[in-house]
């Protein structure tokens, strides 16, 4: 192939590489911000609702979180390279457990946030696929803290893929955690799944106690 043809093809090739990966479109900053605002308002509404008791609040919060967070994609990210080593049955079980854990964890945290208010900070386009939306969370009798939400466009609508608190990313921390459990279990998924089941049992026990 002579040089001229190659040079002609180069911009086209570059264009191909610039296309977003399948499943993830470029996220619009305004859309991401509006999405976080809407989700935040729903969560605050659920948490502060005087008519609901604690279990009902948790249910509402769980429903909002399931809708807003890309649980399956995040679960895959957290599993990292072990995705390839797991059997389909193990993966299905992992997805199920991960969904349960993440919703319980987050709704347990947020459930105690009575009287919470949040305000939007600035938003920025982190990469072509992610936007970072900053929110400031205020609770009574506590200093306000900053929560950053990473939003990506999954399946045509914006969804949360990560929560970052003062520089610490939740999905990076969780990935490190699960990798350590797998490494200490000799790379077997069953060890991780067992640990996750225990975790869910503990969380459920705490919920029923409080």
């Amino acid at each position, binding site marked *: 192939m002579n040089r001229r043809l190659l040079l002609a093809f180069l911009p086209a090739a570059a264009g191909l590489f610039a296309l977003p990966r399948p499943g993830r479109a470029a996220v619009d900053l305004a859309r991401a911000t509006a999405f976080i605002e809407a989700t935040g308002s729903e969560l605050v509404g659920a948490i502060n609702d005087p008519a609901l008791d604690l279990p009902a609040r948790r249910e509402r919060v769980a429903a909002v979180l399931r809708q807003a967070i890309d649980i399956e994609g995040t679960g895959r990210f957290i599993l990292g390279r072990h995705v390839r080593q797991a059997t389909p049955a193990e993966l299905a079980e992992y997805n199920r457990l991960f969904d349960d854990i993440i919703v319980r964890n987050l709704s347990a945290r947020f459930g105690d946030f009575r009287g919470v208010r949040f305000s939007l900070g600035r938003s920025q386009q982190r990469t072509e696929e992610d936007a970072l939306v900053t929110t400031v969370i205020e609770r009574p009798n506590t200093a306000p803290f900053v929560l950053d939400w990473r939003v990506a466009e999954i399946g045509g609508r914006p969804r949360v893929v990560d929560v970052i608190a003062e520089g610490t990313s939740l999905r990076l921390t969780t990935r490190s955690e699960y990798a350590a459990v797998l490494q200490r279990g000799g790379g077997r998924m069953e060890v991780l799944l067992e640990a996750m089941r225990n975790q869910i049992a503990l969380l459920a026990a*705490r919920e029923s106690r409080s």
Partner: protein
Amino acid sequence: MVPKRRRDGYCAVMFRFRPATLRAPVLALVLLAAACATPPPADDPEAVAEFRETNDPFEPANRAMFEIHEIADRFVLQPIAEAYRDLLPQPVRDGIRNTLGNLRAPVILANDLLQGNITRARITLGRFMVNSTLGLAGMLDVSRDWGVPGHSEDFGQTLAVWGVGEGFYMFLPLLGPSSPRDLLGQGVDIAMNPLTWLGQGAAVDAAGWVRLGLTVVDTREALIEPIEQVRATSLDPYSTLRSAYRQRRAFEIRNRETPAARVVAPAGVTGFGQGVTAPAGPDARPNPAAAPSR
């Protein structure tokens, strides 16, 4: 005994057996070998890459230290911190935290300058002067009320800005997560602190110990909820803390703290967090069903 040599491990133990004279060093080396993590087999490149990235060659020793620390923490440090929160009203705790933070200002100023950050150095100096005078020897953070919040710097961050790598992960009892760079940084900070050298005599010594004690308790009090959270929700608190510590340090080094988060110029001496935010109010409590011990 056969000479042992591991070529791909981070801590290769190589010795030759000589009867009688080398029992103690041999024992030390054997213990060292036991404290070293086993690297994954070389035919699994992804696992090797992950091992390198984790950069925790002394993981067994670190985990042992972590267990020791957890016991000391649950039975001694955490009850003290909780009693501190229960007994002292929030304004008093605020005042203590502000004072301790103000006392750290010379070190923060020095590190700002060493990093070449004149803007932040000016802020630190201004805050120190205003808070020490109008703020009643640092008890009131007047500067923050006027819109100039504080920030955290230490020599570990300065070394990072100068290009020194983090080094392997270390977990030290009481000090918490650390690394060779950060540990050296803490040492240099103590040497740089004028309060270390100022004055002599029993009263000054006592004041120094009081300051250290209050710093530790104050930092622990700020971390009651985060640590409870980690203990309750993590499958492996050791690695959660390791990851969180590293991310947090990277964040501090980048100097990206947002002004909305009210960082009080920290008195942090422990690795758990050099920057702590304002104390929790009287209603702040860890989750009522406390984390069951595991």
